[in-house]
């Protein structure tokens, strides 16, 4: 199966090569973007190997409850004398696993619905977009809180599923808008003129040119999922069954009184700092991607 070659050497291979070159150029132009990539790399490492760096049960030190930050415990210890840094590192897996599941579902559903609606137009489009608008209007966090009364999101994966099913609206809208503009372009028209099947056009022509855009949305979905999840645990509406950043925040603020005394403050600041860094990493990478896809933002 060969791709239709359009005048000007606009084949997919060239497109891809140009894209890779664009990415590299955008990353090199500002060192901050490289830093973003490095930060994301560190978090990925933490999610994959974090729990392996420490024993199954983190050591407790009954003589050092809420210890002040020191070389042995850079962020002090928690209410039972466990090292806070170790908690942040081992807790990363839960947070990132949920975020990953959420992002995959959000993006898969959003892309499928947006592509279908944008490509088909007509009645299906209208119906799907009505549903999307409705989803976007219902406030997600209050809905999650209300749902938590009848439904315990127990595992990280289950949690990710719920967040993903609640989160595809924005992606669907964005992908639909992209599809609407792409379907009028020359290479799609050429494919249609050649009588290629809809499946081929969507899968082989539209999706690849939208891949970077989808990747960007995945990253944004990851941050959204991290926030929603950590926030739910922080508010204390979900049962604690594993160590994660949200649980740490909840225990530090409402158990340790981090907002009234300074003793539990490092315990609260450590997960906050982790979220801050993760956000920074994603923001920097998205900033680089933004420049690649929005040439208007580029300086002439």
């Amino acid at each position: 199966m060969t791709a239709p070659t359009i005048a000007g050497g606009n084949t997919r291979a060239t497109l891809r090569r140009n894209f890779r070159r664009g990415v590299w150029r955008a990353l090199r132009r500002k060192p901050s973007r490289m830093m973003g990539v490095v930060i994301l790399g560190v978090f990925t490492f933490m999610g994959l190997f974090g729990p392996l760096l420490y024993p199954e049960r983190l050591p407790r030190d009954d003589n050092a409850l809420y210890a002040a930050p020191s070389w042995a415990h850079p962020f002090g210890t928690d209410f039972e004398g466990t090292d806070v840094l170790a908690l942040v590192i081992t807790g990363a897996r839960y947070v990132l696993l949920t975020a990953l599941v959420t992002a995959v579902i959000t993006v898969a559903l959003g892309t499928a619905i947006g592509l279908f609606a944008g490509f088909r137009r007509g009645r299906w489009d209208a119906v799907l977009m009505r549903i999307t608008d409705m989803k976007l209007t219902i406030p997600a966090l209050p809905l999650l809180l209300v749902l938590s009364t009848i439904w315990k999101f127990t595992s990280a994966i289950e949690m990710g599923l719920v967040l993903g099913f609640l989160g595809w609206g924005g992606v669907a809208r964005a992908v639909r808008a992209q599809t609407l503009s792409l379907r009028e372009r020359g290479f799609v028209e050429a494919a249609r003129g050649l009588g290629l099947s809809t499946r081929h056009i969507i899968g082989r022509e539209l999706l690849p040119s939208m891949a970077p855009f989808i990747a960007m949305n995945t990253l944004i979905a990851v941050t959204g999922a991290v926030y929603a999840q950590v926030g739910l645990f922080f508010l204390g509406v979900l049962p604690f069954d594993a160590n994660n950043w949200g649980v740490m925040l909840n225990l530090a603020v409402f158990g340790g009184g981090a907002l009234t005394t300074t003793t539990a403050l490092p315990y609260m600041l450590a997960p906050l700092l982790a979220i801050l860094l993760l956000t920074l990493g994603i923001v920097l990478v998205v900033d680089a991607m933004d420049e690649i896809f929005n040439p208007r933002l580029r300086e002439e």
Partner: protein
Amino acid sequence: MTVIARRLAGHLARGFVMILVVTTISFVIIRNIPGDPMRARYEKLVEQGMSPDQAERATAVLYGFMPKGTMWEQYVDYMKGLLRLDLGQSLSVPGTGVTTLLASAATWTILPVLVGTLLSFAVGIIMGVYAAIKRSSKLGDVLAVSGSLLHGLPQYVLALLLSAVFTTLLPIFPTGGTADVTLEPGLNAAYVGSLIQYATMPVLTYALAGYGGWILAMKSSVVTVLGDDFILAAELRGLKRGFIFRYVARNAILPLFTILALSLGLLFGGAIFIERIFTYPGLGLLLLNSITDRDYTLMGGAFLLITVAIVIANIVADMLYTAIDPRVRSGQEAS
């Protein structure tokens, strides 16, 4: 004008459907709570010596609908209650209607959200223009990245950081409640001063959380306008920079007004974190407390009110857009 009227009618219809969907969700949830609190309440009342009829009526007053008949009949009863704005009785605050509780909490959400958002709008717009004009310099970079970061951070992170600095490390601002309880409520200087002091942290968080979004939106809006032909024409005619600045800002700000309405609505959802962290008794805290207290009528009511606020904000945003954008007014869809 007919276009505007038609759009408004469409929005109202859609808003109505939205509210129907949300009330249905809260009905289904109240019906499906494990342990069926309504059944338990009914049985307890019968045990206490009420006749089944009386017990049924008492339960209906609490929950806003009768736990009898088919699912459909219960649903119709629930909806009928809503039409009369009767959201039932609160279960955790005995003898108080849900509507009363919601009304008093709404004030504590609406005012800080409004003040905080307008504040961030004003500051963000100005910084956004700078970020756009200086987008190739260090200053522009810093503004843009700080904007993205602040925009990207969840409100609870901002609230907790602010709280750590201003209430734990440097106890400047109080946390918890709306004013000093020892003061006499009324229009006296001490009480109003205390109100402002207690509202500062929540308002500051709303403002900071919104600010990043405004910088980014204004920046991209200004960049778009800068590329328009009329700017080039103005430059060629040799107009001064200040003139261009005014031209650009005025044109770039228009689309942002619609986002303003939208974000006001969305902040109602986000108020949960801020109100929880600063123990500020608004709608978000009410919803959260209703969940921990298992006060299902209050929960349904708060959820409904937050959604209605967002639906209204959406309609206002779109109507604003229709009024501002001539393409929409003349009947063309602006996509």
